């Protein structure tokens, strides 16, 4: 089971790869769209990458509720 720090780091890696987000900026309070400039198509790519990396399924209705990096981290923690 990865630690919260591992999840944050893994998520930061995905965000950098998919959307060019600087890893240090990927902190829990950041909103994907408002703060990190991640558009809706990139969110779909990020969800796919999260599913691969952490082995969690993210249905579309759940994805719609993931607004911040912290939301994503807690979703991954809960569903692993």
């Amino acid at each position, binding site marked *: 089971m990865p630690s919260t720090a591992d999840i944050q780091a893994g998520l930061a890696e995905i965000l950098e790869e*998919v*959307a*060019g987000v600087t890893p240090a900026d990927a902190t829990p309070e950041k909103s994907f769209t408002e703060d990190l400039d991640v558009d809706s*198509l*990139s969110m*779909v*790519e990020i969800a*796919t990458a999260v599913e691969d990396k952490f082995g969690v399924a993210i249905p579309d209705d759940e994805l719609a509720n993931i607004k911040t990096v912290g939301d994503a981290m807690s979703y991954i923690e809960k569903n692993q």
Partner: protein
Amino acid sequence: MSTPTADVVVTGLGATTPLGGDVASTWEALLAGRSGVSRLTDDWVKEFPAQLVARLTSEPAETLDRVRTRRLDRSQQVAVVAAEEAWRDAAGADSGVAPERIAVVFGTGIGGALTLLGQDDILEEKGPKRVSPFTIPMLMPNGPAAAVGLAVGARAGVHAPVSACASGAEAIRWGLDLLRLGRADMVVVGGTEACVHPLPMAGFAAMRAMSTRNDEPERASRPFDKGRDGFVLGEGAAALVLERADAAQARGATIYARLAGAAGTSDGYDLVAPHPEGEGAARAIGAAIRDAGLTPADIGHVNAHATSTPLGDTAEATAIRDAIGDHTLVTATKSQTGHLLGAAGALESVFAILALRDQIVPATANLDDLDDNPAVHALDIVRREPRKATFSAALNDSFGFGGHNMALVFTTV
């Protein structure tokens, strides 16, 4: 406020091609007679009758940031690279022109084929959930125009003519129309193509349209030569910035040339075969010259479409002879660049403009034995080395599968 005139000028050029990563290096390589053609060494190509391509010298990822590269099909990447060079060259960002008055017209012949085919592989291997959410914007044929529109902040309209190998030239004509009609004050125009992949290669080869001179890559593209056996597929993009002459002069822009006239016709003859006497091509050439307010005698140079196919080159030679005459200096630069399909008309317009600027006509490479066709014999085709000449008007023509004919006339200012 002065009344806008219909006089349209070229104030920026951009290109990334099999001869160089920008306009200057491409032009230098062209005049030096270098070839952009090489033989593919990939495993898949071994069974292919035609194994030659003209690849880019510079990967677009060297210029674009990683995220942008990821989200753009290769045809869009090269379009953006060329358009950004043209935009910088024209100092477009400092022009003071409002985004609502900036338009883009960018054509492609094939569109995002690499994305379509690559994502189809993913679909087959991994299923629909793994298909990229960027698949559609990356494969749509208006994608390059849209990507260029975002890059330059164009809000007056983004348009994407699709007329096979005439697309780049058609984009330039649309740009001229937009400025003449007062629908924009600055237009970034051009064409792009990047479809080096087994399927397009197999498709063109099945049409018997590609050269199979696999053992002599640099000698394979030989327009107007008796031994020509088809075109060589190239990749790349070229872009021009157009604006009204009065506006360009008022802002102190560097003016390369006037885009004095343009015209397009359709053959109404066959889906892919050119009319044997180039009837529609000749009409386009004649109409473009009249549109420019010139006579055939004024056209000192023609950058021909001449793709090195047996039928196309003789039809075009006939059209040039009939519509212009035998005094004009003709060149076929695809002998060195290969055929960039939807980018061809834009790249060859860049060449025609630089030929005007430098008063030199690049040579047609590999033209050893002139075709027996009387029109080919009648023309003054520059070969062996570039020729210095004095001329004030140059014409670029482009033709596309589907019977599309385009002609553009550039003049010195």
